[in-house]
């Protein structure tokens, strides 16, 4: 499959998912309002918890509202990375399109990427809406941000997280039920990754464990780029760690998915729930 055809196919997946989402018009329109409520909740919570001790624990130039807002907005990516591939596979099985998809000429990796395109784009939009509400209503500082740096951290984070998502989908393909490791990993990432508090407040052993989950580097990089205007040189340690996760997880996950698919073709359980 050449690049042009691959892009055309990816676009077809995106258009499919957009058309389905648009058919639920009210939900489509109400989601930004729901996000405003979430941002407002964090704003007032941060005013309540703001203290000298907390300011001291946060990296330079951050208050709790900005710190938590970036944590909240970007943790979504990890959730989506885990759920996008799984949900797309599960939906295809439930609405009976899985066999129809698998007898087309499109290679499976293109289908996987295509199915994840819309959820990731939607999450990017959600992030933009979160930050937008923060900026325009609650004074989120955006002038100092290194936006290209933030974009680089985001793209590399998506690559790092996508591998985990495909691994999770492979599990679903073989065992038919949601991956228990997924919840463990998301729970551990929420605890260790510094979504709501800096990892410096964790005990030493947990701080070491925090270095083993990609979200830690993602949030460090994103906060550095958005809140401190960190240069690419300063962002490089986070980017390098995320790239390493991507380089390890992506090939392993695609190999695992190919094996899982082959296994279901041998056992005849491809369309089983």
């Amino acid at each position, binding site marked *: 499959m050449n690049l042009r055809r691959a892009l055309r196919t990816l676009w077809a997946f995106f258009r499919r998912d957009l058309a*389905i989402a648009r058919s639920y018009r009210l939900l489509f329109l109400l989601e930004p309002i729901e996000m405003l409520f979430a941002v407002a909740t964090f704003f007032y919570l941060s005013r309540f918890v703001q203290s000298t001790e907390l300011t001291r624990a946060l990296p330079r130039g951050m208050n709790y509202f900005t710190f938590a807002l970036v944590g909240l907005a970007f943790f979504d990516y990890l959730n989506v990375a885990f759920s996008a591939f799984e949900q797309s596979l599960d939906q295809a099985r439930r*609405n009976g*399109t899985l*066999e*129809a*998809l698998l*007898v*087309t000429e499109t290679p499976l990796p293109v289908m996987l990427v295509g199915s994840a395109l819309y959820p990731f784009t939607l999450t990017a939009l959600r992030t933009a809406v979160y930050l937008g509400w923060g900026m325009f209503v609650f004074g989120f500082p955006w002038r100092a941000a290194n936006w290209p740096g933030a974009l680089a951290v985001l793209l590399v984070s998506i690559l790092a997280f996508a591998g985990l998502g495909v691994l999770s989908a492979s599990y679903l393909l073989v065992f038919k039920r949601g991956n228990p490791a997924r919840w463990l990993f998301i729970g551990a990432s929420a605890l260790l990754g510094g979504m709501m508090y800096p990892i410096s407040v964790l005990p030493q052993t947990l701080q070491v464990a925090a270095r083993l989950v990609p979200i830690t580097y993602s949030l460090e990089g994103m906060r550095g780029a958005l809140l401190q205007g960190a240069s690419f040189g300063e962002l490089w340690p986070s980017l390098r760690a995320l790239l390493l996760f991507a380089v390890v997880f992506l090939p392993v996950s695609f190999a695992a998915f190919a094996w899982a698919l082959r*296994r279901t073709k041998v056992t005849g359980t491809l369309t089983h729930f």
Partner: protein
Amino acid sequence: MGSDALTIENLEKYFPPARTGWKTLVQPFTRATVCALAGISFAVGRGEVLALIGANGAGKSTLLRIIATLLAPTRGRAAVAGFDVEREPARVRRELGFHTGGDTGFYARLSARENLQFFATLNNLAGDPAARRIREVADLLALGEMMDRQVRTFSTGMVHRLGLARALLHAPTLLLLDEPTRSLDPLAAAEFRRFLKNEVVLQRGTALVFASHTLAEVEELANRVALLDGGRLLACDTVPRVLASAGAATLGEAVERLTLRAHQETRE
């Protein structure tokens, strides 16, 4: 390119035994010991119609899914237009259309046109050629006026037609249908069969392999029938020859006699 649309040689398929409870966790790694197909061989020429018949569990759907690259054979070979289903699955999928008789398999909140456009792109058809082809198959299947309606508003018969339209979009060499008229009323089923015979097989020269429990349908459509029982191929011939070999007056009678004969031979 070989002359046959489909070649099956000594095809065997074994599944792992079904497990329940905690043993389902080891099921994917269990050795395949349950026989679904045992040494099946036959060929289907271009423009020919072969019906797969036999009781539930005979192996019809398994065979269709192996040909469609959705299942891996345990041993033996299947090739579509000369392309091996194991070694060249992408080439095989280019040559075949596959439609199961169910009334699912589409995005219910998309229109018929949006559904066909999506699957056309996945089959390497885009732009004007895709739009032209969609128009052609929609006209062919009398879907024209319904193309911009959401699929969730379609009747079972309309979903069927849409399924066939999708299977025919890329003008396949071989069309595989699993119980194509299962959920159609008698009138719609008769119309569907006429369409298959006249428009798909006779006019376009597409080879057709279909599984069915409706023997009248089989007699109306098929050049040959393949009778399966417990994964074994008991007969693969024209209807008159199958009747002669069984000494039967009707196809139903022939199926019964040949199956009983096979069971007796197995017991002996």
